[in-house]
Structure formats: C-alpha cells, structure tokens
C-alpha cells in the first residue's frame, strides 16, 4: 500500500480491511457500518470525541470486545486477508499477532524480564533460555528501554517510572512479534518528555509494524500518524492522509472537531 492510497474500500495490500462493521452493546449501537483499509507499516490515528466509537473499533481489531458479554460485532474484519472472526481463529493467538498497549501502564507485578518473557513463553516461541534472553533483549531494544534497564532486568517492573513502565508494556506487546500494534491513548498518563519518547518509538516501530493509535490529543495524532480516521457518534466520518485532515478536511464535522468547535 503506497503513501498515496487512501481508501475505505477493502484493498488487497492493506494490513487490515474492515467492511461494514457494526457493534452493539445490548440494544445500543456503538458503531455504524465502519469500513476502512488500514495500511501496513504506517501509523494510523483514530481521533474523535469521547464515546465516538474509536476505542470500540480498536478493540474489534484484536477481539477484545469478545470479553464483554453484551457486546455483539457484525461485519468483516480481515488481517492479511484472513477473517479474524472466523470460527477457527483463536483470539489468544490473534492477540499475539495484534499487540495492544493501554492507556495506563499496566506491567505485571513481576520482574522486568518476566514481563517481556511472559508472552513468548506461553506461545512457545523460545526453545531455551538463550533464545528467550535474546527475544527479551530485542524487544526491550526496540522499545528503547534496554539501555535504562539492562542492569536491573530482575527487579520489579512496577518500580519503573511511568514512561519506562509504558515502554515496558510496549516491549511486552512486541515481544510476541506481532505485525500490528494497537495503542489506546498510550501517553495520556505520561509527562511531555515520556510522551515524546513514546512518540519517537511509535515512529520507529512503524517501519516494522502497522500501528494504530487512539488519541485524544489531536496534536499527537498530527505528530505521529500518516493516516487519520475521524469518528463521530459511532460513524467513521473521514479517513485520509493526516496532512489533509489537519489542513483541508473534506467533511465539516471533521473541520469543526479539529479546530475545537465541537467536542
């Protein structure tokens, strides 16, 4: 998928194709006919006011909504052309391929090493200790945390600073070698320096993964993403190049939201 391809219709080279996705919580419809083609090796930002459906849609992509009993999803979502809601798909396996980082850093109350090693271990990715060490080191390197923690890998992950904890969670998410990384407001609990470090990391990761970030900060969306999707009242209003969305959005609702006229 090239930088110029912008489409809501499915394309063969998109990483993720969503077609007519509807989500209901009981009788309440949270998403209406969302169709979008998420490109590979780019950062896509989901923006929109609270309750617009952006997090709901993000959680459809690794089937996190399966854990909510009243939640019902219809429509198609494919990852590399494979239907992720097909009966044979194991959600646990899917979540190894589609990693997720949450709003609040949530390291396990375990050592730094064990936090990162947990996923690779349960997915049987390492044959021996040396291989596991390598996976942990590589993940921490890619999360730009290795230099800060290499001498204290066996101390608790919860003892790190907020920014370090969030990078640890990113290391944990990428240790299972996913191809897609979902980030739900990953910087909202961080200070500006830690935020800048995470944003730099997101740029870096996008050379390898498809990254989708939900953010309330429009400036953050503008800084880190190449594609932006604007959600409003459960509809995907506009999907386009981030440059265009923030300079010449084509829908009045997008314009009103990004210029601070509707919340």
């Amino acid at each position, binding site marked *: 998928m090239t930088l110029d391809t912008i489409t809501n219709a499915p394309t063969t080279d998109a990483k993720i194709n969503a077609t007519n996705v509807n989500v209901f919580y009981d009788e309440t419809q949270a998403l209406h006919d969302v169709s979008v083609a998420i490109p590979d090796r780019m950062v896509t930002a989901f923006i929109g006011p609270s309750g617009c459906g952006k997090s709901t849609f993000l959680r459809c992509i690794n089937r996190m909504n399966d854990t909510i009993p009243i939640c019902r999803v219809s429509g198609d979502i494919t990852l590399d052309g494979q239907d992720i809601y097909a009966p044979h798909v194991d959600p646990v396996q899917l979540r190894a391929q589609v990693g997720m980082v949450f709003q609040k850093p949530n390291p396990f109350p375990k050592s730094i090493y064990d936090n990162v090693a947990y996923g690779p271990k349960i997915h049987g990715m390492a044959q021996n200790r040396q291989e596991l060490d390598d996976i942990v080191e590589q993940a921490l390197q890619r999360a730009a945390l290795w230099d800060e923690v290499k001498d204290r890998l066996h101390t608790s992950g919860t003892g790190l600073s907020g920014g370090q904890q969030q990078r640890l969670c990113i290391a944990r998410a990428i240790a299972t070698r996913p191809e897609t990384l979902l980030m739900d407001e990953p910087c909202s609990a961080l200070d500006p320096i830690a935020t800048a470090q995470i944003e730099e990391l997101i740029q870096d990761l996008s050379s390898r993964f498809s990254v989708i970030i939900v953010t309330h900060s429009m400036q953050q969306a503008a800084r880190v993403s190449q594609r932006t999707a604007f959600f409003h009242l459960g509809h995907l209003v506009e999907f386009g190049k981030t440059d265009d969305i923030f*300079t010449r959005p084509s829908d*009045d609702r997008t314009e009103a939201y*990004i*210029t*601070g006229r509707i919340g």
Partner: protein
Amino acid sequence: MNTDHILKAFDADLEKIQALLLRMGGLVEKALQDAMTALDKGDLDLAAKVIADDKAIDALEERIRQDVERVIALRAPTASDLRTVLSVLTMASTLERCGDYARNVAKRIHVLEEFRYASSLNSTVKRMAGTVASMLADALDSYVSGDVAKAQEVIAQDLEVDQLYNSMFRELLTHMMEDPRTIAPAMHLHFIAKNIERVGDHATNLSEQAIYLVTGTLPSDDRPKQDVTSVNLSGLRDDLRDG
C-alpha cells in the same frame, strides 16, 4: 465555518488579528488615495503626510506579526483557523509593501512640478490609480466576505492596469526621445506608474489569499500578464525611425 470555538479566547484572538489587518488595509487605501491627490494637486504637504504616516502601517504589520506568532504558539490552529492566521500574516506583509509604494509615489511628487504639460500622462496615471484603489478595496472586501467570485474579478482587473502601464511606458519613452530635458521628470513619473502598477499586482495577491482562505488552495498563477515593456522597446525604436 461560522460556529464559535469552544474556547472563546481563541475566537477573540482570531477576530483581533483580522481587525488589525482591516485597519491596516484602511490606512493603505488612504495612503494611496492621498498620494494621488497630492500628485494631482502638487500638494507637497499632503505628500509629506503620506510619507510620515507610513510608519503607522509598518507598526501595524509588526503588531500583526507578533499576534500571529502568539496565536500559532498558544492555540496550535488547524485547517481553516490555520489558513486564517497564515493569510493574515501574508496579507499584512503585502499591505505593508503597498504602503511603501504609496510612500514612494509621494516622495517623487516634488520633482514633477516642471512636468505639467503632459496632461495625457497624468490622466493615465490617475486612471491606473483609480483602478488599483478599487482593486485594493475589493480585494479586502472579498477577504472579509469570503467572496471567491469577487476575488477572481480583482485578479482579472490587473490586466487593465498592466495595459495602462504599457501605454504609459511607450508615451514616456517618446517624450524622452523627443526632448532630453524631460528625461528626469519622465523617469520619476515612470517610477510612480510602476509603483501603482505594483500595488495592482499586490491587490491580486490579497485576492489570492481570500480564495485560499475559503478553498484551501491558492489559485494557479496562469492569469494573463500584460506588462510587455521589457520586449516592446525595439519595436518602439522602429516606429520612431520610420515615423
């Protein structure tokens, strides 16, 4: 976009920089008008006032620049808001330039006392100035009202100014060739005409900003240009020799 921002102070900031721009536009229109009156009547006092008043135009440009800098730093404007601040900044710099042209016209008036006989020239300059003044006013109006069609009319009008300037250029050359004593005043009159012609060009730039503000893109720069003075000199020489 008519709706107000949730943050009222942002609306106030944008209104303020636009109000300053319009005040600046008013001063520039007045400067041009006064310079032409001074030229017409040989009023050196009025010419001196135009020269002195240009400082107020320069000061407004600087104030707008500072305010725009502040809005960008504090409000991080996007989309139409961003175009508003960028267009205000560009237009302030354009208007400042127009003020300089009015001042330059005023500066040359005292040397034209002895060049009264060429009344056809003076009337051509006046026509040019009249057209340019209305272009300037219409350009600012089109900006305020977001009137793309009006802005496009201003751009089209520049052709007329260019044509007047060309005919004046030829006439001045003829005078200078016929009587070398007219060279000095004719050169000054030519600079006056050129300054006015440049204000016309800048009025089209203002109109382009009005279009940019509404549509998000600058109009293409392929409008017809009629300043051909750089190529018609040899033709004129032939005319004179044959005539």
